[in-house]
């Protein structure tokens, strides 16, 4: 179909059919303010901020949901448009607490930003305000309905991207609230704690459970030996908290910053990512050899684990029994490391820096205590770490790069790519290929499993046996893959990451996290991999030493005791 001609603010604009007025205006370089709009995720025309005049229309039109038509005449900057936009924003603000100074999202709040852009200097419409209480029931997330502006981005991402439907609009009119059905507490429903809602929230109505105080306290305690592990995806996003570009690889400065904060040892989750490949890779080969349950599905992502427990409990036997790298780390820190370092396991405190809100829930699971203590004590998100560094006055971008501590800081490029969708699969293939064929892999990069496409498939020839692999990220895509398995598709190995883009797009990452940011962080991950000397997990000398000195062999007795776990079916509702 040919393109469509329209006039926006007296400019002739030519766009593709199906374009919205908002998109057309953006293409023409005209800015229309938006609030509830979130490209491809939430296009519902609810906030009525992006209003424009369309000639011939009875009322102002929400440009985000109005399709262009031939000959359309649009005005985006008339007195009426500006007045009504302001009125609607003032109305929204009249039901929003004026607590900007003490708000966790202050200076990174879209409502605050918009109020400034639209020149709001007073709120004429004072009146009753919503009085719903905050919900602290979740291990990962806090809902503060008072700050909710009902843009529905969170519900859209939960319903349409993750397909979890844990939250949605309840009640109606002025009493409308975004909450679980029947206003159940978030911690008691099938929320998987992925935190995608917090990522898209324009205000502080849903945010991570802030545990920085616990970490400050323990850092100040001289009796505690506090160790920290950093997830692969944090190194390519932490810089954003300090104005650096997404995807900038900040591993060295991240280590330096954590030392400055006062951690006794700075370790890397990438180490246990390599270890995961050893355990999971061998589990896969064993299942193939011995006719075990196939396809094998990865178990690194705690949001994914809770999802399958709630929604596909009958498929739990497909899951790898491997703990996630975070939990393997905790278990080893409180067994192997304390043994080596001569520390009492009761005195060590393990902090994780994760791109993830679900990791907070995972760390608290009762079964995650195989070391005799809770394996991981506190999980902080990338955002919380940024906050601590700011509070400590650490000028991140001015830091000199430093190295991780040994032995749990030693890692490979395979460990780093765990941070991106397709990364676990690629790391596993690098190792599995060499273990099975006994040959050196000719090309390390498996491009078929990289990128933001929702479901990616690849087949690899391992000594005459074809291994069918599939990768999915985002739970909506995960659901599709599970349904394919149910329908009889022959897969051997499935990687699933809960969040779109994998951990680089995790719910604990800096805001904004959108498609463009995800792409940049992903590029950062593969840059970091390229920059590593060793890029295959089984070649990690610290992992080899761990097996030699402590664990014995992959899937051995000690591994099973410390590194493997089990799952529990949960109710759907």
């Amino acid at each position, binding site marked *: 179909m040919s393109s469509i001609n329209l006039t926006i603010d007296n400019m002739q604009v030519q766009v593709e059919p199906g374009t919205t007025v908002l998109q057309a205006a953006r293409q023409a370089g005209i800015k229309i303010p938006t609030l509830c709009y979130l490209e491809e995720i939430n296009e*519902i*025309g*609810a*906030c*009525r*901020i992006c*209003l424009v005049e369309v000639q011939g229309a*009875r*009322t*102002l039109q*929400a440009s985000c*949901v*109005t*399709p262009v038509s031939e000959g359309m005449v649009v005005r985006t900057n008339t007195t*009426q448009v500006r*007045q*009504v936009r302001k*009125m*609607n924003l003032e*109305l*929204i603000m*009249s*039901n929003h607490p004026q607590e900007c100074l003490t708000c966790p999202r202050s200076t990174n709040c879209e409502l605050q930003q918009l109020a400034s852009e639209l020149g709001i200097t007073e709120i*004429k*419409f004072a*009146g*009753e305000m919503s009085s719903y209480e905050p919900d602290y029931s979740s291990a990962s997330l806090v809902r503060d309905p008072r700050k909710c*502006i*009902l843009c*529905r981005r969170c519900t859209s991402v939960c319903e349409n991207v993750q397909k979890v439907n844990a939250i*949605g*609009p309840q*009640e*109606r*009119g*002025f*009493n*409308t609230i975004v909450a679980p059905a029947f206003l159940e507490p978030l911690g008691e429903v099938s929320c998987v704690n992925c935190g995608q809602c917090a990522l898209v929230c324009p205000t502080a109505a849903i945010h991570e459970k802030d545990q920085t105080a616990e970490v400050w306290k323990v850092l100040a305690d001289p009796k505690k030996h506090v160790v920290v592990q950093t997830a692969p995806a944090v190194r390519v996003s932490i810089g954003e908290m300090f104005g650096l570009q997404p995807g900038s690889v900040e591993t060295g400065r991240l280590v330096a910053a954590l030392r400055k904060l006062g951690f006794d040892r700075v370790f890397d989750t990438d180490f246990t990512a390599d270890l995961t490949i050893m355990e999971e890779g061998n589990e896969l080969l064993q299942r193939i050899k011995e006719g075990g349950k196939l396809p094998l599905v990865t178990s690194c992502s705690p949001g994914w684990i809770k999802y399958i427990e709630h929604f596909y409990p009958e498929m739990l036997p497909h899951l790898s029994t491997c703990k996630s790298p975070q939990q393997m780390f905790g278990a080893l820190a409180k067994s192997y490391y304390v043994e080596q370092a001569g520390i009492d396991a009761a005195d060590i405190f393990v902090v994780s820096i994760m791109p993830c809100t679900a990791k907070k829930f995972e760390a608290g699971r009762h079964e995650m205590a195989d070391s005799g203590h809770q394996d991981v004590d506190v999980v902080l998100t990338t955002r919380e770490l940024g906050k601590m560094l700011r509070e400590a006055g650490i000028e991140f971008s001015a830091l000199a790069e430093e190295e991780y501590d040994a032995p749990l800081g030693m890692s490979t490029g395979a460990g780093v790519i765990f941070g991106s969708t397709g990364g676990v699969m690629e790391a596993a293939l690098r190792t599995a290929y060499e273990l099975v064929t006994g040959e050196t892999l000719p090309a390390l990069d498996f491009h078929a499993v990289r990128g933001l496409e929702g479901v990616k498939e690849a087949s690899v020839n391992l000594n005459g046996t074809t291994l069918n692999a599939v990768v999915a990220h985002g739970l909506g895509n995960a659901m599709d893959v599970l349904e394919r398995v149910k329908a009889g598709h022959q897969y051997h190995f499935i990687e699933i990451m809960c969040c779109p883009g994998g951990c680089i797009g995790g719910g604990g990452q800096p805001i904004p996290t959108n498609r463009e940011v995800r792409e940049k962080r992903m590029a950062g991950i593969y840059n970091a991999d390229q920059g590593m000397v060793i890029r295959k997990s089984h070649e990690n000398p610290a992992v080899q030493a761990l097996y030699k000195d402590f664990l014995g062999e992959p899937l051995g007795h000690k591994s099973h005791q410390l590194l493997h776990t089990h799952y529990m079916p949960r109710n759907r509702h």
Partner: protein
Amino acid sequence: MEMYRSHVLVCAGAGCISSDCKSVQQALLANINDLRLDNEVKVVETGCMGPCDLGPVVMVFPDGVFYRKLKPEDTREIVNEHLLKGKVVTRLLHSPVGSSEKVVSFNELEFFKRQTRIALRNTGVINPESVEEYIARDGYRALGKALSQMTPEEVVITIKESGLRGRGGAGFPTGLKWQFTAAAPGSPKYVVCNADEGDPGAFMDRSILEGDPHSVLEAMAICGYAIGANKGYIYVRAEYPLAVERLELAISKGREYGLLGENIFGTGFSFDVEIRVGAGAFVCGEETALLASIEGQRGEPRPKPPFPAQEGLWGKPTVINNVETLANIAQIVLNGAPWYASMGTEKSKGTKVFALAGKVNNTGLVEVPMGTTLREIIFDIGGGINGGKKFKAVQTGGPSGGCIPEAYLDTPVDYDSLNELGTIMGSGGMIIVDEDTCMVDLAKFFLDFVQDESCGKCAPCRIGTKRMLEILERITSGQGQEGDIELLEELSYGIKNSALCGLGQTAPNPVLSTLRYFRHEYEAHIRDHKCPAAACPELLTYYIDPRACKGCGVCSKACPSDAVIGEKKKPHTIDLNKCIKCGTCKQKCKFDAVITV
């Protein structure tokens, strides 16, 4: 078929049910049986006849004798005198307000005489549970005609040429809607009947569904044939259990008789209907919210376009017509477009059903040609204002509409004339108010309704209507401030211009129209702290007229705040500091000595 010499029609509309027509009917039957007249006289339970305030009402045919306000004990006399001896029971006849003359036949009553009943042709006449009675009155003949003698295109053209416009409120040309849906790509297509009638005081659709359900089913099948749909849904509110029951019965009878289902009349055309019961949200009358609700989603509107004609139920082309709209269809198909278009005004053809409510003598349901004046409807058919009070205004279009003051009573009613007056036709509710009604309070009532019924999706409706209500509450409680009227106007224009759906876009109308015609009442509340209609309790001051007060002490005893003081047998006074303005003294006083200003 058995023959009876007399038919006694007992109205079993909701109004008469609430005035206990069931007992009247039972007593009637018992008395008929006692006198062994049951082979000669047939009692028929019908849908709503219209004059609800006169219920329980009964008509005796063949003469059309109209009895009103019956009690079970009255039936013995009717049976003994009228049905047995042929003597009309005069004392149970109706005399219109202001007349002592008893009117025998319903045909002679202004209330019925001035009506033209098309949508209501069978309501109050036939037994709604009998498909045979519907068929006996040309029922399903129009469907037969459409299927056997007309192409789908001809049906669409007929409806287009009839000039019929949507009776649910917006007045969109029905034939055009059918044409768009017929032409839209996509399959299957659907016919949806919107029976989520929710305006306060409106019950046109309920009466049709309860009184003549087959007229809706037949029309849906005709629409299905015209647009190429084989499936219809009736979305009816849960508050209409009788309508649901009668629809269910009608659907099952329709299937049994081959009027619905596979291969209707052997023509190869199949059409079936299912009922979906709403869950009590007014906004589900908005078509996109209604579709969402049928689909099992939260009943919330979505932006248009796409319109339901292109992407409706489950994303498929869908016609959504209101009950009353559909109730006209069969008659148009049978009698032709020119017949229908001969009634009404230039741009509003045919008839319209109105529900008269409020301070009018004949509350109830009436159907008149478009273009009938408000004065005819309210005074000639409606019998004028009750209690000898003065007419002040009529609210049309429910919470989406506005009020019309006395100066415009001679306006011929149609879609366009009402729009010009700042209100809308809406679904046909007419709430008549008299001099005792405060117009700010009236606007507050409707704002309270819409803010409560707002779905909460878009900001202007969710928060804006709440803020408007708060301002109105402030004004009616004497806390109004200078600038409140301007604030109301700013909110009104902003909400009208920016809300997502029709509910929000029309929500400010009651405020705008009362400001247009009764701005002085707002100003009196704000500036003088007075309610000109003496209706807002917090703005009243209670006095005791010393000339009228006998000092009986009844008010003093009744006062909950000990505000009435005075010695026995001497005029009392009210301590205004203690008075909580509850009005108890005024109610209790036998001498009308308590006055309010």
